[in-house]
């Protein structure tokens, strides 16, 4: 399917394929390269990221149902690439936890995939995504993701893994998705608790993807705009 020859000295075939897999494009392969003298791949950064406000979300799970709907044509919390967890008996703000894929800088899930199904999609703004045709359902990517809950989902029907693609591959969305396009969860959220940003949040900071999206208007409807340090759930 694609050129199997490495483009850069020192880059092994497997790492190289992680970049190219599923894209079928070889011309832009220069977007990823090996650090000279090492066996480490440098992945091009994703062009977009989701950040969330765990103190703003109201737990309607509209984002989850819509995420699943635009990708699969069906509404399922288990197939949603964003996970909102809540327990109505807990105290605010610990009653809600939001989990989005970080589109990590050096994505452990991409690195872990033995068959290059989990790859960097250079056609779609370098999102970290999974080619279902290649995925063998080994779930090594799930194990590798450093967050709890894991930001990848195992689909028991297809026996494949999936993850947030920033809505790049959404057969049931009228609009163009992916970086630069619509993110369904962002657009559907009634309160603006999810935001799409282009600047990469600080990696290795367990709080960097949980931001404060509340402002004066939020105070006007009766709630607080205070900053909270809410745990991302690192493994």
């Amino acid at each position, binding site marked *: 399917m694609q050129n199997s020859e490495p483009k850069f000295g020192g880059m092994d075939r497997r790492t190289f394929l992680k970049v190219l897999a599923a894209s079928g494009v070889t011309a832009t392969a220069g977007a990823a390269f090996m650090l000279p003298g090492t066996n480490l791949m440098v992945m091009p950064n994703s062009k977009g990221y989701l950040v969330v406000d765990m103190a703003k979300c109201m737990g*309607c799970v509209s984002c989850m149902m819509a995420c699943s709907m635009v990708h699969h044509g069906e509404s399922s919390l288990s197939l949603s690439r964003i996970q909102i967890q809540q327990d109505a008996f807990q105290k605010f703000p610990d009653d809600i936890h939001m989990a989005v894929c970080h589109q990590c800088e050096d994505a452990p899930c991409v690195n872990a995939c033995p068959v290059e199904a989990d790859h960097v999609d250079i056609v779609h703004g370098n999102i970290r995504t999974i080619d279902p045709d290649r995925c063998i359902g080994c779930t090594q990517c799930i194990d590798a993701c450093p967050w709890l809950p894991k930001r990848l989902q195992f689909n028991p029907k297809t026996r494949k893994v999936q993850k947030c693609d920033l809505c790049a591959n959404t057969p049931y969305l009228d609009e163009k998705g992916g970086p630069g396009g619509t993110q369904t969860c962002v*657009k559907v959220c009634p309160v603006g608790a999810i935001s799409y940003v282009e600047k990469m949040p600080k990696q290795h900071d367990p709080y960097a993807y949980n931001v404060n999206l509340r402002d004066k208007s939020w105070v006007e409807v009766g709630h607080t705009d205070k900053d909270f340090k809410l745990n991302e759930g690192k493994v």
Partner: protein
Amino acid sequence: MSDITNRGYAGKILHLKLSTLEYEVIPTEKYVEWGGGNGMGTALYWDFCEDKTIQDGRDEKNVVVIATSPLCGTATPSAGGRCEIVGTACGLYPESFFSRSNIGGRLSSMMKYAGWDAIVISGKAPKPVWVEIQNSLVRYHSAEALWGKDAHETQLRLFGILDRKNEGWGWQPLPGKGAGDSGYTTQIPAIAAISQAGERLQTMAGILHDAGNISGQGGFGAVWGSKNLKAISVLGTGAVKAADPAALIRARFKVKERYAPDVQKPDLLAWSFLSYPKPIAFAGDYDQSRRSACVGCVMGCRQRFSTGVGNQVKCQASAWYLAYIKKYAKKHPEEIDLNNEKQIVEISNYAADLCNRYALNTYLFQHALPWLEGLWHRGLLGKGKQVPSELDFDKLGSKAFVKEFCEAFAFRKDIGALFGDGFVHGVIKLGLEEDYKNGTLDFPYWGIQEHGYDPRAEVEWGYASILTDRDVNSHEFNQLYWNISIYTLMGLKPRISAEKLVHLIAEKLKPYVDGPECMDFSEENIYSDAVLNLTRWYIHYNRFWKNSALFCDLRWANLFHSRGDDAGNEGATGDPEVGEQVYWNAVTGENISIVDGLKRGYRVIVLQNAIWALQGRHRDKVHFADFIYEKPFEKGEFPFYMWTVRDKEGKWRYGDIMHRKLDREKFEDFKTRYYLAEGLDPKTGWPTEETLKKLKLDFAIDELKEHGKLPESNAS
């Protein structure tokens, strides 16, 4: 017609046969014609309740149905998370009928994801049980250890037993621990539970789900208690498929753009609840909180607090005890600081939270408590008095009092024991019937407390309540009362002129009405055919779109609209891009109009009339309490009751419709015309054979005939 599981339905209904602790799986196919919710529940009740003559829901022969709709578990705006409960109620007066109740939260969506459109509950378990549902796995468990626990603790214990606490926030396999294959979830189960009140068959006991979603009316908590059913826990990993997923998402985006509240520019004086941007909290603001929403809502109406106390309370429940707290604070400033809003909200939340824990219907207390307080002052209540009680009403308004008060009802002791089989029943037994008749006790219909919208003023609410089975609790017209009254109170210029508003609404009610006369609520017009047809629209909408399709009462119907600087626009109801039918069609693949849905609602209400006929209802019983005809309405939330009226010159304006009573004879005549319009026999109120046939309800004919409840001749 394509496989129903490709168009919104899970495809299966679960029948829990409690007497034998068995269950059966019923294909949903046969019930799809009813839509879901109230309609589907009524049809299931008809099929599974063998003796429909029962007049108390706590009878072992009663059947309770929990029903979802195709929209549950989808992103349909404010319709993804409601859940309908039907069956014969208890505690109504003079006797109890088949009735309904509705709760929000995560229950109905979880049922769908687990693969169930409805749950039919029949019989009585030999011992207390709770039911575990994980996808297709259904298990009965002993509830001996849960018996005696409140509805919060019951759920928390079950989270523990099911090992699905939120610690760790990980993915869990289903079913069971580590069993692998059928799916994974990060969610905790959705549980519905009863408290000690339900166990004690207390007729004001509800069923609670999560911290604050309660089925308040109908006493269904006592119905579960009578069946030895403590709780049902549901967890599912499946999906709801839509016929046209892209159309659903398109409409959801559009409703946000055009109608839902804009959080960046919150319009606190929006006309229409669909656009209302704040939680519905009457006790005040408590900023260390988040809003909390039912599944799929466009703007949650509840909250969760940093104290965790009062989580998910809203609306009347958030403030049922508030006035007493304030009164008490005035006398006891050392205990409660009247100027400390936070403290006041905390105590108010505490009172609301108690009612949630005990799953008690706070609405009942709204009018029962002032009456009880009145008895205390009249010297009729207290130790050794006509109404014997240990409660110290001098402490009314304190935390200690509300605890004792709620416990009395939850544990059916003290005054809670006197009213345990129905409030009005208790009142009569105590020799205080006069209070019920003259309105000292404000219970105008079916022995149920008034909702805040007195039938003498807001007639559509009253008519629909007495012509059905309960306080109708349906706010589509009532929104305008709030909007106009608040504007009047604040001295603001109305955002929508009366003239424009009546036309906007009349347009939505076509073809039931043919002009804005239906919105003239002046005394001369409230018995007119125009108001009658508005009432019919209202009941039919309620029966299908609201309680079968399960659009939330607080957001739908949306008959008029203003957001931000809009002068007032068409509401979302029936709109070709964002109306109820757009979502219905996108999910189910049908192509129905808003009016087609109303016709389905009509069919549902006629079948319910058949059930009521079997239960002994006759038109003679369909009347308000005496005071509604005998005393003018003088005391409401505000010193006036604003509505649209037309003056003698035919000009529309906003006017006060308080200070009047209903006319018994004119209402009787209204009823006759209502029955005729609905195809019910005007002499009895029972469905006629002709109507049953026309609506393809032939299956009901024999049973009605057998019980002598088929009117002799067709409607004259």
